[in-house]
C-alpha cells in the first residue's frame, strides 16, 4: 500500500539528467538552455566578428604599407602616405606618463584605504572613488580644456625653472600638449587602480599582517614588506587594466593633446594619439585608403588593449579568484 504511494511519485519526479530529451523540451529546459547558450555565445561571436571586420576593412592599408605602417612617421592624407608612428608614440608617451603619476598615488591611496582607514570610512571613500570612475570621459575633457590647460600654462615658468634642464621640458608651450593629456589620463585611471588594488589588499589574509606585527615590524613595514608583496600580482593586474584604459581613452585625450602628428622629445609639445586621430579624422576620411588606414589604427589599438587586458585579467584572477574586479 505504502509502496504504491511512493513509487509513482518518484517515477514522476524529474531526475535531472535522467529525464528524456522530450521531457526536458516540454518543461522548457532545452529551449531555455539553447536560448541562453545562444546569448552567451553571442559574446564570443561579436568579439570574433569585431576582429574580423577590423581586419577585413583595413586590408587596403595593410597591403599598401605592410609592417612599415607601424614605423613610418609621415601621415599625409593628401599624398596618400600613412604611417602610424606619431600616433603610437603619442599614445605610449601619454599612457606612460599617466601611469607614472597615477600608480604611486593610486597604490598609496589603496594602502591607506585597505590597511589604515577604519572600515566605515574606507567604504565611504571607496564609494566616492567609484563615483569618480563613473564620470564620463568627455567631462574630463571639458575640465581639461577649461581648467587644467590654463593651470598648466600658468605653471609653465615654474615647470621650466625646476625641470627645464631636461629635454622633456623644453620648447614652446601652449597648454595643449602630451603633458596635459598625460595628467588628465592619470586623473581618469587613478580610481581604477585604487578600487581594484584596495580589493586585492583586503583579500590578503590577516594572519600575514599579524605575524609581521608580532615579530616587531612597524605598521608600515608589515604593509610594505609583507602585505603588498603578497598582493603584488593583483596590484600589477590593476595597473595593466588602467593601462589598457589609458591607451584606448579617446575624448579627454583628443580635447587636450593638441592633435599634431609630430614626434617631439618634449612633453610640452602637442602630440596626437591613435584614438584621437580616429575620432578627429574618421568622418572626413575621403578615399578608401585613408579610411582603411584609420581602421588599421583601430586594429592596432584593439590588439594592444586586447593583449594588455588579457594579461591584467589573468593577474587579477590568480590573486582574487575572479576575473572581474569592477
Amino acid at each position: 500500500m505504502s509502496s504504491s504511494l511512493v513509487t509513482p511519485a518518484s517515477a514522476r519526479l524529474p531526475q535531472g539528467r535522467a529525464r528524456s530529451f522530450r521531457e526536458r523540451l516540454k518543461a522548457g529546459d532545452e529551449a531555455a538552455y539553447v536560448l541562453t547558450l545562444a546569448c552567451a555565445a553571442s559574446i564570443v561571436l561579436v568579439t570574433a566578428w569585431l576582429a574580423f571586420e577590423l581586419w577585413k576593412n583595413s586590408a587596403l592599408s595593410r597591403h599598401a604599407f605592410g609592417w612599415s605602417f607601424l614605423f613610418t612617421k609621415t601621415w599625409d592624407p593628401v599624398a596618400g602616405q600613412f604611417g602610424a608612428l606619431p600616433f603610437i608614440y603619442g599614445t605610449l608617451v601619454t599612457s606612460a606618463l599617466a601611469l607614472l603619476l597615477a600608480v604611486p598615488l593610486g597604490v598609496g591611496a589603496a594602502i591607506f584605504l585597505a590597511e589604515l582607514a577604519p572600515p566605515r570610512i574606507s567604504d565611504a571613500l571607496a564609494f566616492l572613488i567609484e563615483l569618480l570612475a563613473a564620470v564620463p570621459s568627455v567631462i574630463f575633457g571639458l575640465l581639461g580644456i577649461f581648467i587644467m590647460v590654463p593651470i598648466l600654462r600658468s605653471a609653465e615658468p615654474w615647470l621650466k625653472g625646476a625641470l627645464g634642464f631636461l629635454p622633456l621640458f623644453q620648447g614652446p608651450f601652449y597648454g595643449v600638449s602630451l603633458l596635459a593629456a598625460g595628467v588628465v589620463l592619470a586623473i581618469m585611471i587613478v580610481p581604477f587602480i585604487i578600487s581594484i588594488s584596495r580589493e586585492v589588499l583586503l583579500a590578503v589574509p590577516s594572519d600575514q599582517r599579524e605575524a609581521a606585527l608580532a615579530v616587531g615590524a612597524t605598521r608600515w613595514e608589515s604593509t610594505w614588506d609583507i602585505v603588498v608583496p603578497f598582493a603584488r600580482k593583483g596590484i600589477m593586474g590593476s595597473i595593466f587594466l588602467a593601462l589598457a584604459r589609458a591607451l584606448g581613452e579617446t575624448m579627454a585625450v583628443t580635447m587636450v593633446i593638441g592633435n599634431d602628428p609630430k614626434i617631439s622629445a618634449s612633453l610640452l609639445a602637442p602630440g596626437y594619439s591613435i584614438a584621437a586621430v580616429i575620432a578627429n579624422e574618421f568622418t572626413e576620411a575621403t578615399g578608401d585608403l585613408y579610411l582603411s588606414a584609420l581602421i588599421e589604427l583601430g586594429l592596432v589599438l584593439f590588439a594592444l588593449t586586447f593583449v594588455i587586458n588579457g594579461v591584467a585579467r589573468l593577474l587579477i584572477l590568480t590573486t582574487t579568484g575572479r576575473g572581474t574586479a569592477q
Partner: protein
Amino acid sequence: MNVHLIRRKAVNVAMLSLTGVCTVLAVGVLFFILGYLVWNGGTSLSWNFFTKLPTPVGEAGGGMANAIVGSAKLLLLATLIGVPTGFLGGVYLAEFGGTVFSSIVRYTTDLLNGVPSIVMGIFAYTLIVLPQRHFSALAGGIALGIMMIPITLRSSEEFLRAVPMALREAAMALGASKTTAVVTVVIPAAIHGIATGIMLALARVAGETAPLLFTAFSNRFWSPGWRQPTASLPVMIYTYAIAPYEDWHRQAWSAAFVLLSLVLIVNILARVILSRNRHVRR
C-alpha cells in the same frame, strides 16, 4: 634611544601619512570636479536648455532639447539590444554553465568590456554606416548596445550566483523543472541586483562619446525615426567645448552638468540599493 628604532618609527609615520595624502588628493579631485561643474554648469542652466533647439552660431540662447531626446533614443535602442542578450547570457553562465565554454565566455566578456569604445564605433560603422552610406541613430544605438552586453552579462551572472543553492534545490524538490525553478524562484530573488546592474550599465554608456562620433554623428535639428543622424548630449558637449564661441562653452557646461547629474544619481541610487541588499542577505 636606539637610533635605528627611531628611524624606523619615523619612516612608519611618514609613509603612512603619505598614503593618507594620496587618498585626500584622489577624493579631492572628485569634489573639485563636482564643485566646478555645479558652480559653472548649474549657474548657466536655464529652462530653455531642456525645451529649445540649438540656435545658429552667433545667436544667443537656445538649448539642447534634440540632444536630450536623441540620447534617450540611443539609450532605448542600446537597452533593447544589450539587456536581453546580456541578461540571458548571464543566466547561462550562472545556471547552465560550469564548462570550459563558460570560462571562455567569461574571459571574452571581460576582454570585450575592455575594448576601447572608439573601436566599438568603428565596428558599428563598418556594420551599419558603410553599407547604408549614411549616419543613423540605428548605428549609434547598436554601438552602445554592444557595449552594454558584457557589462549586463557579468553583473547578471554575479547576482544570480549570489542566490543560495538551497532555493534552487527547494524549488526542484517540489517538482519544478530547472527552467521553472530559475524563472519563478532564482531570477525573482536576484532581480534587484540585476536591475541595478542594468542601471549602472546604462549610466556607463550614457556618457560614451567616442562610439557615437561616426555612427549617430550629430544633428542641429530634430531627427525623427532611426535612419537619420542624431544629436546626443555627450557629442554635443564635445562639439560645443572645442568650438571657439563663448556662448557654446556655457552651453557645454550646462550639458555636462545635466549629464553628470544623471550619471551620478543613477550610480548613487544603484550602489545604495546594492549595499542594502547585501546587508539583508547576510
